[in-house]
């Protein structure tokens, strides 16, 4: 099959493009997929994490995947973060100062994810934080990673990537798993048929969980509070449900197709001059 991808930004249109790719390729097995970038004029580098989820599902059905018609600029973006390493374009030996590389983890590799944050987050434009707040921020990112382990049971792993755009004054980080989606596990756990957006809305309330043998419900509160003050953006796409929190405005919508996993996107406004801390800072949380 030849599939012509459209633009993929860190927004609902981008997730719709990837969900459509997933739906269109859902039935192919023991075959091949040529993913053409001929119709792509923009691809946000961090969005290779959810693209990795879609392609992992395709590859898991004994297909081969090739990426074709890459313009020079796109090839440069996707090769620089290591995404094209498995597609004939080796990853660079030096990641450079703006890349959080594309890495696929097993869901049991939380320790390695923290190593990743330690290694690649510094120097990427994060606002000033006390060391305590920085640890709590990293703790929250890890909680999101661990949700994949505890809830999604993503046997294909967790995909992480990020990109710092100094000129645009933003840092984008994506974490994507290929497991059971949030609406899917709510409906399975409670034996109900809740619409996807409603299910995601329910799951975002602190204390709500689908875990049966131990309490769960780790909220996204610290990141949410941070984004509120920072002016960044926070998104979750899972199955057909999409949620975005941007400039204090919350938006839910239903995607045209199922995204086969869960993606959490965090966009940090890097020109933020506030200092974040637990106490005695300009912004306390």
């Amino acid at each position, binding site marked *: 099959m030849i599939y012509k991808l459209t633009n993929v930004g860190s927004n609902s249109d981008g997730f719709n493009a990837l969900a459509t790719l997933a739906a269109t390729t859902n039935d192919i097995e023991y075959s091949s997929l040529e993913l053409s970038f001929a119709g792509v004029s923009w691809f946000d580098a961090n969005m290779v994490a959810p693209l990795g989820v879609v392609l992992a599902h395709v590859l898991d059905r004994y297909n081969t995947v090739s990426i074709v018609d890459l313009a020079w600029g796109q090839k440069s973006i996707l090769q620089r973060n290591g995404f094209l390493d498995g597609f004939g374009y080796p990853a660079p030996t030096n990641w450079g100062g703006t890349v959080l590389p594309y890495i696929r983890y097993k869901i*049991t590799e939380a320790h390695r994810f923290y190593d990743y944050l330690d290694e690649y987050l510094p120097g990427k434009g994060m606002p000033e934080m006390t060391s305590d707040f920085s640890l709590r921020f990293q703790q929250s990112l*890890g909680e999101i990673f661990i*949700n994949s382990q505890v809830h999604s049971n993503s046997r294909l792993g967790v995909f992480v990537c990020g990109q710092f755009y100094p000129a645009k004054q933003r840092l984008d980080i994506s974490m994507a798993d290929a497991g059971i989606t949030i609406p899917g596990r709510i409906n399975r756990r409670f034996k109900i048929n809740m619409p996807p957006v409603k299910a995601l809305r329910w799951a975002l309330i602190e*204390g709500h969980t689908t875990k049966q043998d131990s309490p769960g419900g780790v909220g996204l509160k610290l990141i949410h509070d941070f984004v509120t003050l920072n002016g960044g953006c926070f998104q979750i796409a899972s199955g057909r449900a999409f949620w975005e929190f941007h400039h204090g405005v919350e938006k839910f919508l239903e995607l045209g197709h199922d995204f086969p996993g869960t993606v959490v996107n965090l966009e940090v406004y890097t020109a933020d001059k506030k200092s974040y801390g637990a106490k005695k800072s300009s912004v306390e949380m």
Partner: protein
Amino acid sequence: MNEPIIIRVSDLVGGPRAVDAADGEKIFEKILPLLQDGRDVRLSFEGISMVITAFLNTAIGKLYGVLPEDQVDRMLKVKNLLPLFQPSLEKSVEWSKAYYRDPERLQKAIMEELDDEE
């Protein structure tokens, strides 16, 4: 009177991070028989620089599903946890208690939401 048994998290997780629910399970399995035997336990986080709620939920929170709340509160004490992780511990304990007091609470709540919609 028996001396409390000290369990060092770092010995069981093999490093400075308590970030894996499976590691939390190891701690849970270590603590539970001691509490059941009536031994006081001190769970030491000395040397631990990162803790997440999923770990605390399995290491400590699950105890509330097996033993009475007051027994866990009385016999298990946490030591040397960095103050910045104290809110995570408090939240984990609070949610665990609420969860095990009424495990069907969430089922009821979500059914009510569905009923509201109809």
